[in-house]
């Protein structure tokens, strides 16, 4: 059974078709990258996968649960991180993790918080208000929140946006480690091509709400005769589509 199965998914806002009849699957333990320019439909797709948005058409199944009818059963085993959605800034990092630990009914919550603090090096600011942290610290806290329930499916929307190279590398290393250790399925939307090449087993290229190409990073490089995914991205963005 696929961890994520999307079939004929569309989202329309009035006259604008933000996502146009896309279908894809993600196998358990696989990392899939969603690539595309601004307005390509990446964030809208993730919002529909999380049940935050109701699709105009199509069907989504996560971990065998139909998101239209049974989304809460799936959400308990999923989690999400995005730099564009904040955590409450006036309460401490520990309190934030407690809040989300309770929302996800995490057993042994205090031990889990200590474990995450140790693994993501949060100890020095665990009792500081989340709003007083640097961008890099906030990203690590957001990642800790996303992992608090040991998710089977993790959705990440530009997880390393606006991070310095060192912190970005730390986050990517940790995501690789977590996927290998837990067998978690990851769906990653990013503009960082090096990140996608490093983390993703498979990539879908989105343009104007449609999937315009897809495959492993190596297949895409070979198909477009390019040395890196950034060049492939630019080819697709500027020249048009190639049948997947």
């Amino acid at each position, binding site marked *: 059974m696929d961890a994520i199965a999307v079939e004929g998914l569309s989202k329309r*806002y009035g006259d604008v078709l933000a996502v146009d009849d896309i279908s894809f699957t993600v196998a358990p333990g696989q990392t899939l990258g969603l690539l595309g320019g601004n307005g390509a439909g990446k964030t809208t797709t993730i*919002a529909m996968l999380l049940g935050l*948005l109701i699709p105009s058409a199509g069907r989504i199944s996560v971990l065998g649960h139909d998101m239209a009818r049974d989304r809460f059963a799936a*959400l308990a085993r999923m989690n999400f991180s995005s730099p564009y*959605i904040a955590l409450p*800034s*006036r309460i401490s990092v520990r309190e934030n993790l407690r809040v989300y630990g309770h*929302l996800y009914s995490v057993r042994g919550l205090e031990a889990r918080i200590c474990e995450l603090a140790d693994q993501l090096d949060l100890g020095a600011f665990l009792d500081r208000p989340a709003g007083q942290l640097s961008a890099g610290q906030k990203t690590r806290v957001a990642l800790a929140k996303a992992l608090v329930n040991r998710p089977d499916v993790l959705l990440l929307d530009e997880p390393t946006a606006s991070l310095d190279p060192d912190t970005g590398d730390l986050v990517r290393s940790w995501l690789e480690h977590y996927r290998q250790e837990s067998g978690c399925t990851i769906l990653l939307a990013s503009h960082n091509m090096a990140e996608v090449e490093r983390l993703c087993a498979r990539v879908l290229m989105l343009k104007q709400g449609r999937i315009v190409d897809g495959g492993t990073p190596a297949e895409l490089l070979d198909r477009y005769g390019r040395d890196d995914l950034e060049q492939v991205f630019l080819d697709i963005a500027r020249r048009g589509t190639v049948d997947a």
Partner: protein
Amino acid sequence: MTGSARRIWGLTYRHLALYRRSWPRVVELMYWPILQMCIWGFTSSFLLARGSATAAAAGALIGGVLLWEVALRSQMGVAISFLEELWSRNLGHVFVSPIRPWEMVAALLGVSMMRMLTGVLPAIGVAWLLYAFDLFSMGPVVVLFFANLMIMGWWVALAVISLILRHGAGAEALAWSVLFGLTPFSAVFYPVSALPAVVQPIALALPSSHVFEGMRAALEGVILWDHLAWALALNAVWMAGAVWLFAAQFRQARLRGAY
């Protein structure tokens, strides 16, 4: 704890943690009810000094101020707790967690009750200390007045949240103002019969007017059960309407992508 209880506690804990870290927020909860109590308490003392004919009106004035604060603080408690999530840009995380909409509402109502008691109980103490007005002298029926006004505050808040979900930040001001707009029709300081005939049906459609009619009678030692029954029934109807509106706007927000 069951899954539901944990999730409700999780969101409640988020607000308790916020207040634990900010004493100005706690002081602010008590500030307005106590200030209102002082202003209207001095007014009542002045009326009392004018003669015994106005003594009953003076008691009704203080009782009205205290009980209306129950509705006001309950409404603001729910609406502002919801706005806290909006202001901290945290709603997206909450809505993609397994918390059900009804669990989120239950947490907001619980926080609202704590906020209301933190604000109103000190004002009741001030009324007793400064003006020798004992709200509880009306007897156990005062609990029913409290409950009805708290429920009214809750359904008004649910309607306000629905408008915020529909219209976004533009509707935020309603969180503070909407219940003040119902004050003239709620017969807080005067009987419904004192209102113009054309306005009286509006007043009688609100649970609050029945509570305050009941309060004025209770201050004279009479319990008007019919008014209490009306208040309860009207609350049930208005609450059902507010829940329907909230559910509809919540679904609309998921269709429009309003988070």
